[in-house]
């Protein structure tokens, strides 16, 4: 993190000391790094958890010293406790979806890229931006703290359906652990709302001269649409969570009714557990796209730049993102086909759900056409982008099966679902995130990451990813439910145990591969070769700043924009890229 010499400061900023520079920074670039590092730490925790419960699933009941080392009383004699298994699954899911792929992905790249790509000196409100990070950090810390609660962390699944999540009698994790989960999630929602408002306002108001909406890079478009989607749906989760707090602590009955537990009938009457599910999935489904769209935006930029070719169908790419975002808000019921929902309503949700496949297909075909007759430079970022296209296809296609209510009856809540969403949302979003880190690392740290380690990281990661998640579809078809501590109670599943074992081996391999990435990341911050100003020969505005831009981004005037971000390999020019701030020559017409 050396070489922050040429800072341009606003008048009210004094000389930067350690605290204002690294800790209470209001510079969007520093905040972006704060998000990234926090998310990486949370990612390690989430990943370790998945390895822990994969040990149990691969070799049920076997003793592993490492479990006892890390989990202590929750793994007596090295065998995972069933309640702790559920807790690990729950916290793993929560951390991955919210901390890593929402906070981490949007927080890192919206902060880094929005001001740089639209030509702004900083976010509209640096202060809100700082608050957004601090709420995020608070939320992450509380989530981690909940791991140390006497009765264990929340264990009702990341979807925290009541009554299970409302009643400590039902599962010990629904005591203090669940309370902390709700507090953490509240802070998280505040963080993402503060961030989201800021991103939207910045994009609408602070674009530099010439940066019309239809010249914005697709990354910024994606982050913009994501922020709007988050702003519309996260408050609903907040209200769902608050009502749950009332039911848990103040005796209300929003979600509870007719319950007899621990030998006693509860007083709650008139509530409906299904109401919670509607509220939860009203966020929960858009959430899938809140993690996916930024990844798709990053890939669009990387695929185009590294193919030295304009992204094919720029307008269709924007249009399909808008369509996906809109549709994602009216499909939530596909998570509830078997809740006893009115069958007619089920039909409506099947209809809207399958429609999402259309804009998704458009995106895939546009990526493929962008590669066609390109001149592809295989940077690690490009490999991850290609990996994303593959996972997006694979996972998207199995979504057509799940979205069909008649088929979902049999595979709902089985491992088919686990395979599907890890590929389409987990892997795709993570690949987008890796792609972004490899691509913009020079912008963040002024140095390059090691490409060979990057290649190794990619190939091992994608191999183990498909090794882990693809076979899960078939476990699901065989009827294995998810969130099972083990399958030994069912002899009919005995024959599938070697597959579970293989999956666990791949999971361990995949986790080890991430060590390569962390090593590369940390090593390159200090020792990586120095980056040139525009290492990927990109057109976008972020590469017109100095290698280590100070607070304020451009030392002189903000550049004016004359063209879209995808003038690569224009037939009428000799150079293969023309940055956005290059004025057109007299005979040139704008094409896109």
């Amino acid at each position, binding site marked *: 993190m050396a070489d922050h010499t040429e800072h341009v400061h606003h008048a009210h900023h004094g000389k930067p000391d350690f605290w204002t520079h690294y800790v209470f920074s209001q510079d969007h670039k520093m905040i972006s790094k704060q998000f990234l590092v926090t998310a990486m730490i949370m990612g390690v925790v989430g990943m370790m958890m998945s390895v822990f419960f994969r040990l149990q699933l691969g070799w049920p009941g076997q003793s592993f010293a490492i479990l006892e080392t890390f989990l202590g009383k929750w793994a007596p004699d090295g065998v995972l406790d*069933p*309640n702790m298994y559920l807790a690990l699954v729950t916290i793993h899911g929560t951390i991955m979806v919210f901390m890593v792929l929402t906070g981490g992905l949007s927080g890192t790249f919206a902060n880094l890229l929005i001001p740089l790509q639209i030509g702004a000196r900083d976010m509209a409100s640096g202060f809100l931006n700082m608050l957004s990070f601090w709420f995020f950090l608070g939320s992450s810390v509380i989530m981690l703290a909940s791991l140390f609660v006497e009765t264990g962390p929340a264990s009702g699944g990341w979807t925290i359906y009541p*009554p299970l999540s409302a009643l400590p009698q039902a599962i010990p994790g629904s005591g203090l652990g669940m309370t902390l989960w709700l507090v953490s999630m509240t802070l998280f929602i505040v963080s993402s709302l503060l961030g989201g408002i800021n991103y939207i306002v910045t994009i609408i108001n602070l674009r530099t001269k010439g940066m019309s909406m239809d010249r914005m890079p697709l990354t910024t478009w994606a982050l913009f649409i994501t922020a709007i989607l988050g702003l519309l749906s996260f408050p609903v989760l907040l209200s769902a969570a608050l009502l749950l707090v009332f039911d848990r602590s103040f005796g209300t009955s929003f979600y*509870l009714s*007719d*319950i*007899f*537990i621990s030998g006693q009938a509860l007083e709650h009457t008139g509530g409906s557990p*299904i109401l919670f599910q509607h509220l939860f999935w009203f966020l929960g489904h858009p959430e899938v796209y809140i993690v996916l769209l930024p990844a798709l935006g990053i890939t669009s930029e990387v695929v185009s730049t590294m*193919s*030295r070719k304009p992204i*094919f*169908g720029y*307008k*269709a790419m924007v249009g399909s993102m808008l369509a996906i975002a809109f549709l994602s808000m009216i499909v939530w019921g596909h998570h509830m086909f*078997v*809740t*006893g*929902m*009115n*069958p007619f309503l*089920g039909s409506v949700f099947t209809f809207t759900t*399958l429609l999402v496949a*259309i804009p998704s297909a*458009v995106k895939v075909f546009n990526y493929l*056409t962008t*590669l*066609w*007759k*390109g*001149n*592809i430079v*295989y940077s690690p970022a490009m490999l991850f982008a290609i990996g994303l296209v593959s996972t997006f*296809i694979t996972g998207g*296609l199995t979504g*057509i*099966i799940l979205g*069909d*209510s*008649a*088929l979902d*009856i*049999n595979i*709902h*809540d*089985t491992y088919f679902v686990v395979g599907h969403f890890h590929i389409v949302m987990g892997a795709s979003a993570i690949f987008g995130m890796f792609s972004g880190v490899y691509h913009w690392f020079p912008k963040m740290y002024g140095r*390059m*990451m090691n490409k060979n380690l990057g290649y190794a990281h990619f190939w091992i990661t994608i191999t183990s990813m*498909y090794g882990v998640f*693809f076979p899960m579809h078939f476990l699901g078809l*065989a009827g294995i439910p998810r969130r099972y*501590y*083990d399958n030994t109670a069912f002899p*009919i599943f005995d024959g599938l145990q070697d597959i579970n074992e293989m999956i666990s081996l791949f999971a361990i391999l995949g986790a080890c591969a991430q060590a390569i990435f962390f*090593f590369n990341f940390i090593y390159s911050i200090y*020792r990586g070769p120095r*980056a040139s100003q525009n290492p990927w020969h990109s057109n976008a505005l972020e590469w017109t700043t100095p290698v280590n831009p100070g607070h304020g981004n451009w030392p002189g005037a903000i550049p004016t924009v004359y063209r879209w971000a*995808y003038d690569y*390999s224009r037939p009428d020019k000799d150079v293969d890229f023309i940055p956005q701030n290059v004025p057109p020559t007299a005979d040139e017409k704008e*094409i896109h």
Partner: protein
Amino acid sequence: MLNLLIVLVVILAVVALASVVRVFELGADLRGHDPSAVTESDNRTQSTILVFAGICYMAYVFYQIFWGPEVLPVAASVHGVKTDFLLNLTWAIILPVFFITHILLIYFGYKYFHRSDRKSDFFAHSTKLEAVWTIVPTIVLSSLIVYGLSTWQEITGPTPEETMVIELYSKQFDWTARYAGDDNRLGPSGYRLIEGGNTLGVDLTDAASNDDKVVRGEFHLPVGKPVLFKFHSRDVIHSAYMPHFRTQMNCVPGMTTQFHFVPTMTTAEMRVETGNPEFDYLLLCNKICGAAHNNMQMNIIVESEADFNAWLAGQKTLAEQLSKPVESEIKPQQAEVLEASTETPNGI
């Protein structure tokens, strides 16, 4: 001690890796290369690995597709045969799409790796192409939607007359089945009536309750006859999952959900079909419900109608099971609860 050793080994490995990387980078520096630049030979190598890995991936998928039908159990219900057909139809549509798009991805990735004497084709837009790949998926998906929804409608349609009614009652962590008896009417029940042996909270004062029969551990179904299940839960949400019948429905405290189907194969037939003399149909819990979620099950025996009738006749009625004298009065507030929980909301 062992832990300390492990930590030391990890640290050593990191240091060694750092030195190796350093040596390579310095070597590249000396030869005047930028060690981070992606070279022609990188492009060639990576695109070749892409082809190799891509082919492996497709072979892996291909292999599992053929292995797939073996894991999906034979459908043993009338609607299950239909949904399996729909599933196969969907596979038949998505698999070609999968292979074609992946082949294109890999082929383009290989064919067009960067060479400095080439220039990309500036191809930014084509209304015709974009229209094609908007309209074709729309048509394909529409037909899937129409077909899927017609199947869904058949499954969820009205229950045929003379359907036998069975209640499946869930609690942490077991299942209870209640047969409606000769009157084919389940007696009303409510959670406030749960007491002693009356674990389902059946209202014993109601005439419809007396002939109800409660069974645990396993329950029986007659082959070829429609059955209507009413699902209840007393504590948290459970889900009644019977994979061989392609049936699943959540059990939600405070409401009644339902599902009806016709089993088509007896347990004996299925034992022959699967080649497994131990085979039994299963009811599993498929909604996270607590520590023993992974072992909340009940066996299902499907048999001929005659065998079924004989079995049912051998079961005691509720009145016989709970030989306690029947209470004759219910308190007014209980009556309210009863009413609320015996209607069948569709639970929107």
